[in-house]
């Protein structure tokens, strides 16, 4: 694919333009899963396990079924016989997962019975009448207990609670550590949180026995969703039609819902009625299977006296909960940026995914990168403190320099481009760093706890899945393509067709902007639609910050084919060579002879109506598809376990100033600046919006949000009153400073940005908190650093015993 020149001037890309999606949302005319309302539709409520681990002795649904308006009570006995287990990414075939439990339950909230009724209210009434007798069995909540030999087993058939355990060595690790001037070991914990969209998961399914076709509307963001759905339901792939023209009310990774959708799909076919399941908040929080990474990092770092990093050892235990889909792969993506933006020559990485009796983990924004960045950035700050070097200076000394790109890291990925030092400088300038330091020091003199935190992090993007074969040799996936179809109708209007749903990323704006750029037509006039899964070209959904690169690249590729076809038609009719045709605004003329000209409408008309005026052999009509493989993709891991996983690497530098009330321990973020380089921005308002939102997620993960469990396995934060999402009062005004280092690998120099802000935010906030605690001699290396945890840390540091 040819690129625009080294200093491209774009007509629409990078310009202020209203998002195409926004008007329908402000009118209240979005079309979300819960808005789908089919005639005769029935509603599902779920009976959930109250035990973290138990044998199901008996289920009696007779009282529920006797209630007027109740149609059915489905148990795991029936469901698991009729459907196949859901797909699992790692090599653990005995860890079987179905929509309903059969025989045993493995976490509090696991679905045991699905009750179907005329209304959701009746279904809930009936669910309360289902009598399930359980015999509690030993459970395990702590992942470090779960990996011991004498632990209760979550899946005895698997023989262990360890579902993934790898040991990677890239570079001369032992030698580096043996010869290091200094080493430092520390433990960092990332608490169990998630992105928790405001819309819970919803799915509606309808079976047409005449066509033998299952129609599905779901609030889904999941690669290969229709294929997995069909397989679980034992249907041919072409018997499942997923409608992607459903607005998804936030996802940030977690809206997978394959369990929910197979359940309603099965019920719709079994009962011959349209079936709807929309989670309530408690079902979502404990049974929706959307918790995020929950990690223990043992970090060991080797470095010189001047702060130069030499080697790194990371042991990461991730508590994936009671079942696994793709979640253990979240230990794999960080391999693609395992040393962050720093020059570190030798790295050891030991990822371990552990099953426990908790709600399963799902993919969360960044796919494991944010916790890894947090651990790395905390470690770097501790090295700086140990050596008494300024935390900004230690980063400057270790950041990869601009002239070193493309830069290959020990684990095999080559970073495409970057200018990290400049982004740091711009961030400090925007924050007026010397003034900020003065403000902090004055606050400290006034008796406050005040701290400045920095993080410098990478956002790997482009969404290739090279971590799959790296972590599971039986999986030889090497492509993760995306595609677009562009058509121009007889009336000369342009339509772009994409094949996936969106959850706020503005893909209709993206596609129309890119097509408009290539065809030189106003994006406002370009419509973008979403084909259903039987009509769509292949897509892997908006995961891994990939759509600006992949869908943008595919839309450009398809639009270029249209442009080339129009030029061919023009050359043929104007009797000149292709090279002599000048294409401008969609009209074509002979270069130097502006009167020899065919307009956009005339050219389109020829393509649709007058094949005798077309070059011979050219297909009539005017449409083009383009399927694009991920740049740099296509390879399996080398025998030394190195692999290029993601193609592009955006960079972010966060600078945060925090004050903590010394008496109440309440933290307040007083300043937040984020320097960001994601290459060429196609839609700046959209990129900035996602970055603000990612930072808000990061603040939540750092300070507030936790799925907390008691020792006896009960989830303590199943509502939004216990699981604290930051409001407009906790999220401060944020200043974003843009920088642009184009990617050499993509169509317009763009990189991805969907995970921006979240990947470096928690680290910067955590470092600021620690800078504030430093004068007390206290330190916190575990998220979330809640108000309560802060109070205890400060109180303990001040108690006489601590002196």
């Amino acid at each position, binding site marked *: 694919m040819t690129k625009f020149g080294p200093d491209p001037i774009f007509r629409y890309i990078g310009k202020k333009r*209203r998002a195409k999606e926004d008007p329908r949302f402000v009118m209240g005319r979005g079309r979300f899963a*819960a808005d789908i309302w089919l005639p005769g539709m029935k509603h599902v409520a779920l009976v959930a396990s109250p035990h973290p681990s138990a044998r199901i002795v008996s289920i009696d649904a007779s009282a529920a079924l006797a209630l007027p308006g109740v149609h059915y009570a489905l148990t795991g006995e029936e469901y698991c016989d009729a459907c196949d287990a859901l797909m699992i990414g790692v090599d653990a075939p005995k860890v079987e997962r179905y929509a309903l439990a059969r025989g045993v339950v493995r976490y509090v909230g696991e679905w045991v019975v699905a009750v179907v009724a005329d209304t959701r209210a009746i279904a809930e009434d009936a669910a309360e009448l289902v009598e399930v007798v359980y015999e509690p069995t030993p459970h395990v909540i702590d992942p470090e207990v779960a990996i011991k030999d004498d632990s209760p087993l979550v899946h005895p058939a698997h023989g262990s609670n360890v579902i993934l355990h790898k040991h990677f060595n890239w570079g001369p690790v032992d030698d580096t550590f043996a010869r290091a001037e200094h080493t430092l070991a520390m433990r960092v914990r990332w608490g169990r949180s998630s992105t928790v969209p405001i819309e819970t998961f919803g799915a509606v399914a309808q079976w047409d026995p005449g066509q033998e076709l299952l129609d599905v509307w779901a609030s889904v963001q999941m690669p290969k969703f229709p294929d997995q759905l069909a397989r679980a339901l034992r249907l041919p792939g072409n018997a499942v039609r997923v409608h992607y023209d459903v607005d998804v*009310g936030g996802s940030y990774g977690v809206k997978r819902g394959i369990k929910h959708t197979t359940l309603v799909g099965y019920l719709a076919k079994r009962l011959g009625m349209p079936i709807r399941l929309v989670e309530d908040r408690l079902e979502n929080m404990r049974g929706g299977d959307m918790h995020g990474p929950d990690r223990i990092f043992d970090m060991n770092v080797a470095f010189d006296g001047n702060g130069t990093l030499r080697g790194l050892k990371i042991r990461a235990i991730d508590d994936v909960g009671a079942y696994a889909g793709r979640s253990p792969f979240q230990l794999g993506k960080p391999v693609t940026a395992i040393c962050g933006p720093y020059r570190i020559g030798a790295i050891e990485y030991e990822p371990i995914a552990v099953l426990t009796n908790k709600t399963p983990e799902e993919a969360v924004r960044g796919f494991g990168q944010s916790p890894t960045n947090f651990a790395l950035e905390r470690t770097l700050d501790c090295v700086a403190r140990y050596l008494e070097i300024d935390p900004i200076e230690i980063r400057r000394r270790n950041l990869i320099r601009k002239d070193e790109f493309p830069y290959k890291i020990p684990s095999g990925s080559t970073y495409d481009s970057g200018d990290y030092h400049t982004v740091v400088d711009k961030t400090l300038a925007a924050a007026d760093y010397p003034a900020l330091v003065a403000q902090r020091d004055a606050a400290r003199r006034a008796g406050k706890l005040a701290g400045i935190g920095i993080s410098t992090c990478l956002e790997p993007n482009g969404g290739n899945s090279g971590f799959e074969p790296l972590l599971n040799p039986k999986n030889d996936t090497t492509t993760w393509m995306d595609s677009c179809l562009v058509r121009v109708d007889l009336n000369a209007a342009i339509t772009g067709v994409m094949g996936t749903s969106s959850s706020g990323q503005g893909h209709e704006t993206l596609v129309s902007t890119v097509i408009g750029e290539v065809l030189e037509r106003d994006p406002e006039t370009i419509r973008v639609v979403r084909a259903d899964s039987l009509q769509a070209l292949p897509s892997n959904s908006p995961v891994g910050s990939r759509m600006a690169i992949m869908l943008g690249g595919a839309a450009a590729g398809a639009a270029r084919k249209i442009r080339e076809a129009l030029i061919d038609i023009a050359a043929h009719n104007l009797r000149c060579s292709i090279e002599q045709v000048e294409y401008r605004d969609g009209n074509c003329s002979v270069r130097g002879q502006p009167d020899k000209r065919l307009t956009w409408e005339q050219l389109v008309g020829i393509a649709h109506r007058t094949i005798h005026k077309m070059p011979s052999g050219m297909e009539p009509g005017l449409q083009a598809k383009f399927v694009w493989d991920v740049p740099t993709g296509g390879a399996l891991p080398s025998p030394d376990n190195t692999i290029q996983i993601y193609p592009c690497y955006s960079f972010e530098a966060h600078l945060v100033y925090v004050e903590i009330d010394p008496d109440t321990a309440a933290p307040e973020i007083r300043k937040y600046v984020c320097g960001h380089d994601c290459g060429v921005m196609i839609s700046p308002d959209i990129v900035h919006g996602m970055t603000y939102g990612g930072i808000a997620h990061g603040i939540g993960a750092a300070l507030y949000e936790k799925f907390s469990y008691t020792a006896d396995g009960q989830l303590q934060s199943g509502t939004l009153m216990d699981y604290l999402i930051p*409001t407009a009062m906790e999220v401060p005004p944020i200043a974003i400073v843009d920088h642009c280092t184009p990617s050499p690998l993509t169509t317009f120099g763009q990189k991805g940005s969907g995970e921006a802000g979240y990947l470096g935010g928690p680290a910067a906030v955590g470092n600021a908190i620690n800078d504030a605690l430093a004068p007390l001699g206290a330190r916190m290396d575990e998220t979330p650093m809640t108000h309560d945890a802060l109070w205890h840390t400060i109180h303990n540091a001040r108690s006489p015993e601590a002196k």
Partner: protein
Amino acid sequence: MTEKRHAISVEVNGLRRTDEVPARLSLVDWLRDRQRLTGTHIGCEHGTCGACSVMLDGEAVRSCLMFAVQADGHRVKTVEGLCNADGTLGVLQDSFCETHAMQCGYCTPGMLIAAQALLDTVPDPTEAQIRDAIGGNLCRCTGYQQIVDAIKLAARKMGSGPNFEPT
């Protein structure tokens, strides 16, 4: 269904709507399921997220915490009622589009209601007043920044009359 039903009459977006509803039916379920006004969304059903905000007699309330029978005899305005009479976007809605004050659009109707309730009583709010007014509405996409910007923009436009040009 054998539950006892109660007659209600509610003015919704300027039109009187009558129905017979079970006592336990929430106002949001009545609006969404029985009136098919699906612009009002459900996020938590325990009064925390604000997605279901509507105006009741001009004040922002959580329609998940009210029963439909409690709205009997009252005026309700939903997001669908924020457009101008000719169907074009109102100033606040237009400002949300101008600053891209949303991504997924799910919390947006509740945010618009909370913001409109503020602007109806405080035409020229400070940033602190804006953040306070939307402090009960959760958004997971935006970090609130472009929402705050939109409300400021709307206030300026409303205060400057119809000839306002954004700077």
